[in-house]
């Protein structure tokens, strides 16, 4: 009971502090924003711990952060191996291949209005499909190891990226296009100097969506067969062994890698599309 009250009190106090921080000058700075977000995150953890202890939830059902934290610390080699298998080999490889392929395909079909008209509606449709359903098929085709995971990721990210990229290539200002026409610029010149730069905000938008899809795809695919390493493998076996602390440790790593990937893309985006109004202060 005291745990519940304590957690609630902490929550209220942290929230009050956050309200003050958010309204203050400090809250407008970068450090301030991070502080507020971090405080909120800590509050979530404290609440979680309080609830787990207060209601005496069995660690077989839901372990608290105080159990998961040490587990992470003591399982670093396993977590690292899983990370390499799933994130680096599966998700990132697939992500890179999918992104490159979408980029190339977008430029290829951009030249042909016929292909655009034919492929875009289909691409739009496919990007709305539950591609994860293909995971068992692709595991069957590409084997157990990371290649099949990468294949799932490729298929999952390809279409959203293609659709975004093609839209981006067409998103140029009429004014900017006319300018190129008055210069009698060639197709390549138009592409390099106008349409690719103009497409970048769209492309990065697609990349951000794809980044979260990539991880989900790689992990789900491991459920349908994998070597005995990998985050999806870890989760699916540890659940069966009641090793919930390990499951959460893996989830934490997944969230961390996902956020890092997202952050990395956002960072590159802010470098590449520094000129876009959404990136300016």
């Amino acid at each position, binding site marked *: 009971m005291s745990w519940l009250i304590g957690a609630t009190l902490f929550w209220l106090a942290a929230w009050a502090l956050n309200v003050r921080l958010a309204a203050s000058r400090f809250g407008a700075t970068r450090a301030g924003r991070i502080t507020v977000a971090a405080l909120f995150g800590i509050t979530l953890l404290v609440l979680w711990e309080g609830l787990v202890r207060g209601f005496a939830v*069995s*660690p*077989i*059902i839901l372990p608290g952060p105080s159990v998961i934290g040490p587990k992470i610390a003591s399982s670093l080699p396993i977590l690292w191996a899983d990370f390499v298998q799933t994130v680096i080999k599966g998700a990132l490889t697939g992500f890179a291949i999918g992104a490159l392929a979408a980029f190339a395909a977008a430029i290829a079909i951009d030249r042909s209005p016929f292909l655009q008209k034919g492929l875009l509606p289909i691409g739009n449709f496919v990007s709305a499909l539950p591609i994860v359903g293909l995971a*068992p098929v692709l*595991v*069957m085709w590409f*084997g*157990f190891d990371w290649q099949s995971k990468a294949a799932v990721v490729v298929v999952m990210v390809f279409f959203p990226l293609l659709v975004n990229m093609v839209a981006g290539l067409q998103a140029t200002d009429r004014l900017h296009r006319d300018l190129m026409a008055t210069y009698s610029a060639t197709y390549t010149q138009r592409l390099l100097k106008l349409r690719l730069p103009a497409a970048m905000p769209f492309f990065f938008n697609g990349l951000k969506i794809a980044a979260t899809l990539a991880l989900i795809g790689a992990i789900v695919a*491991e*459920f*349908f*067969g*994998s*070597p*005995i390493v990998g985050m999806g*493998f870890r989760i*699916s*076996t540890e*659940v*069966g*062994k*009641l*090793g919930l602390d390990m499951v959460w440790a893996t989830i934490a790593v997944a969230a961390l890698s996902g956020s890092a990937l997202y952050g990395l893309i956002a960072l590159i985006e802010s470098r590449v599309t520094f000129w876009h109004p959404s990136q300016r202060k």
Partner: protein
Amino acid sequence: QDVTLQLKWVTQAQFAGYYVAQAKGFYEEEGLNVTIKPGGPDIAPTQVIAGGGADVVVEWMPAALAAREKGLPLVNIAQPFKSSGMMLTCLAESGITTPADFADKTLGVWFFGNEYPFLSWMSQLNLKTDGSAGGVTVLKQGFNVDPLLQKQAACISTMTYNEYWQVIDAGIAESDLITFKYQDQGVATMEDGLYVLEENLADPAFEEKMVKFVRASMKGWKYAEENADEAAMIVLENDETGAQTESHQKRMMSEVAKLTAGSNGALDPADYERTVASLLSPGSDPVISKAPEGAWTHAISDKALQ
């Protein structure tokens, strides 16, 4: 009286006894209202019972003992399956003829708590499973036999009543296959027992409920053994996915009947000791670290089978 039973896997003839008991009104005769919850890939019966989602679960003994060591006091109250149906099925063309040939081959294994018999077998064979040279390469097998058909693995885990026949159905002749039954290798572990939480057994009302439940379930099992085809049809009716086929379930039922034959429902202590011994066997990573105590009881089955 309400009883919730959590199965280990999806609705199939592996669990025919319970569906038959349900359909034939055996539970009803005992005054029980039984809910049968099918399992699935991500459903750990141990976790479900820990979370209060079931009164009694169908589980394999290694997983149950491991859970017990983790602090979840499961107790075996009945053991309808006498023998183990698990085996490794290998392609003859892989050149495997004896377990000694496993070295440096790729083997498909079920995880999710089902890997314990395999691990203890390998440690008895002195084969490393961490992928190092001279050991075996282990694959986490998915839900089907494709790895064998695609030749991604030399051997895969199969049940005598299920996956083995899928390999056959796929068009591979029995002569092209080599099988190693855990039962024959002396590493068999008890499958498909009924487990409840120890603390619940202290409650006489619960105990009485379980007595009725085990009695009716065993009646169901024996009926199913004798009327395999009818039992298979009952299972089929309960399959909510509608994807199971009649021929497959009928065959599964006849194979399952071979495994339940010889059990009256009471756990044979000798089988138990053998399972524990194999799980404790020396090796890099024993499944349990010490012999469990109080992991089974005849209290229920004795009363049920009077």
